C-alpha cells in the first residue's frame, strides 16, 4: 500500500489546501502524474506522485487544509492486489472552471452544491444561488486557507517566514565579481540575428547555463543544510527567482539545468516564467531547487546582495549588463560588464570556495560558445 502524503513545497510551507483531486478511486497513476491541485501561500501547485499504483482511497476532501506530511490518499502499488473491500468509487462532482473560481471568490463549497448544468455540472448560476441562500458567515476557523483577496498578504507572510529564517539561521557570506560581457553579448547577438523571435535566447538563459555548469565543480554550493549537516544534491536543479506582477516572488526549479542545451534551457525558462505567472507550477518544481539564481538586471541595479532560500546553501545574483570602464592591457575602455554575486552559507562552504566558484562562472561567461 502506498501512502500519498502532502509534500513540502518549500521552506515557507507548513500546510496546504486541497483544491481538487485529479484522480478518483480505481484510476491507475504512474510516476510523475499530477494527482492533485494544492493551494500554498504562494501559488496553486499541481502535485505529482512519485510511484506507480492504483488509487484506492481519497482521504482529504476538496477545500480541506492539512499539514505537510498528512496522508491524503492511499494507493495499491503496481502489482499489488487491490484492498479486499475497496472504497466505493467516489462520484466525481463536475464543476465548471468558471464556477469553481467564482465559488472560491464567494467562499461557497462547490462540492456540496447540486448542479444544474450538463451532466449535473455545477455552473456559475448555481454558485450565485448558493451564495444568496447561505446564512451569514461565521468567523472562519483559524486553519482556513485565505480568500483570494488575502493572497498578497499570505504571499508576504510566506516570504517573511522564509527570509527571516534565512537571516536568523544562515551565516551568509557575500562575494562579487565584475565580468566583461563583450564576447557574450556579441556571441548572443550573432546567435539571435538569423532566428525568428520565437527562437531567440535571452542573456538570462546564458547566465543560468553558466551557473549550472560552474556548479559541477562546486558540489558544496549545490545542496541543502539539514539537521546540522550539509547534504549535497544529486542533481543541479536551478531555482529561478520570478517576480509576480501582483507582487511577491516564487523560485521554481529548472531540473538538470547543466545537462540542457542553451535552446532547451531558454524554452524551459520561458515556460517556467509563463506558468509561474499563470499559477500552474508542478510540485517537483517547487520542492527541488538546489540553488537559486536571481537576476535584477532588467531593473537597472548594478549588483544584487541576495538572501539564501533555506534549506539551500547558496544563491547567485546578476545585475544589469551595461557599459562600464574596464582596464585591459593598460588601456581603459567602455566595455559591457555584469556584476555576478554570490551569497553562500558559511556553515557549508568557505569564502575561498565561493571565490573559486565565481571565478569559474566568470570564465564560462566569457566563453559563450561553450555554453
Amino acid at each position, binding site marked *: 500500500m502506498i501512502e500519498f502524503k502532502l509534500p513540502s513545497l518549500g521552506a515557507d510551507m507548513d500546510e496546504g489546501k486541497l483544491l481538487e483531486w485529479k484522480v478518483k478511486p480505481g484510476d491507475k497513476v504512474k510516476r510523475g502524474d499530477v494527482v492533485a491541485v494544492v493551494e500554498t501561500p504562494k501559488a496553486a501547485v499541481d502535485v505529482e506522485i512519485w510511484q506507480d499504483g492504483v488509487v484506492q482511497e481519497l482521504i482529504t476532501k476538496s477545500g480541506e487544509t492539512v499539514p505537510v506530511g498528512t496522508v491524503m490518499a492511499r494507493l495499491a502499488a503496481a502489482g499489488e492486489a487491490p484492498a479486499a473491500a475497496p472504497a466505493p468509487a467516489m462520484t466525481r462532482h463536475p464543476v465548471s472552471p468558471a464556477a469553481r473560481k467564482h465559488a472560491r471568490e464567494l467562499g461557497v463549497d462547490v462540492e456540496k452544491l447540486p448542479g444544474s448544468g450538463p451532466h449535473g455540472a455545477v455552473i456559475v448560476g448555481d454558485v450565485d444561488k448558493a451564495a444568496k441562500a447561505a446564512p451569514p458567515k461565521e468567523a472562519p476557523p483559524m486553519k482556513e486557507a485565505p480568500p483570494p483577496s488575502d493572497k498578497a498578504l499570505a504571499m508576504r507572510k510566506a516570504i517573511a517566514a522564509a527570509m527571516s529564517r534565512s537571516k536568523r539561521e544562515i551565516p551568509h557570506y557575500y562575494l562579487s565579481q565584475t565580468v566583461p560581457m563583450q564576447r557574450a553579448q556579441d556571441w548572443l547577438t550573432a546567435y539571435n540575428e538569423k532566428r525568428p*523571435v520565437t527562437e*531567440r535566447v535571452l542573456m538570462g538563459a546564458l547566465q543560468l547555463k553558466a551557473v549550472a555548469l560552474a556548479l559541477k565543480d562546486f558540489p558544496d554550493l549545490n545542496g541543502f543544510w539539514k539537521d546540522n549537516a550539509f547534504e549535497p544534491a544529486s542533481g543541479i536543479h536551478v531555482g529561478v527567482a520570478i517576480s509576480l*506582477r501582483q507582487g511577491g516572488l516564487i523560485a521554481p526549479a529548472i531540473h538538470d539545468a547543466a545537462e540542457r542545451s542553451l535552446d532547451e534551457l531558454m524554452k524551459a525558462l520561458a515556460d517556467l516564467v509563463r506558468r509561474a505567472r499563470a499559477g500552474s507550477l508542478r510540485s517537483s518544481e517547487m520542492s527541488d531547487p538546489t540553488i537559486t539564481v536571481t537576476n535584477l538586471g532588467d531593473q537597472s541595479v548594478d549588483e544584487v546582495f541576495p538572501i539564501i532560500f533555506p534549506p539551500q546553501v547558496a544563491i547567485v545574483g546578476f545585475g544589469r549588463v551595461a557599459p562600464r570602464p574596464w582596464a585591459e592591457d593598460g588601456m581603459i575602455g567602455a566595455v559591457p560588464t555584469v556584476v555576478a554575486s554570490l551569497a553562500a552559507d558559511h556553515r557549508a562552504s568557505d569564502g575561498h570556495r565561493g571565490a573559486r566558484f565565481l571565478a569559474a562562472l566568470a570564465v564560462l561567461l566569457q566563453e559563450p560558445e561553450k555554453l
Partner: protein
Amino acid sequence: MDGEEIRKVVLAELKRIAPELEAVAPAKPLRDQVDLDSMDWLNFLVALNERLKIEIPEADYRKLGTLEQIVDYLARKSA
C-alpha cells in the same frame, strides 16, 4: 491593417502580459512604464509576431522604445 487597428492589437497584447495596466502614455518609454522585463518583452514581441505576422529582428529593438514608435514601426512593416 491600419495604425488604429495595430494600436488595438498592441494594447491588447500588453494587457495580456500586464493585466493591471490601465493607461499607456504613448510617447513615454514603454518598458519602464509597464515594468516589462526581458522575458515579458520577448513574449510581447512573440505575441505581436503571431497576431500580425510581422517579423521583428533583434537589431530593431532600439526603434521600439515607446508605444507610438511600436505602432509606427509595425504599420510601416505591414504596409
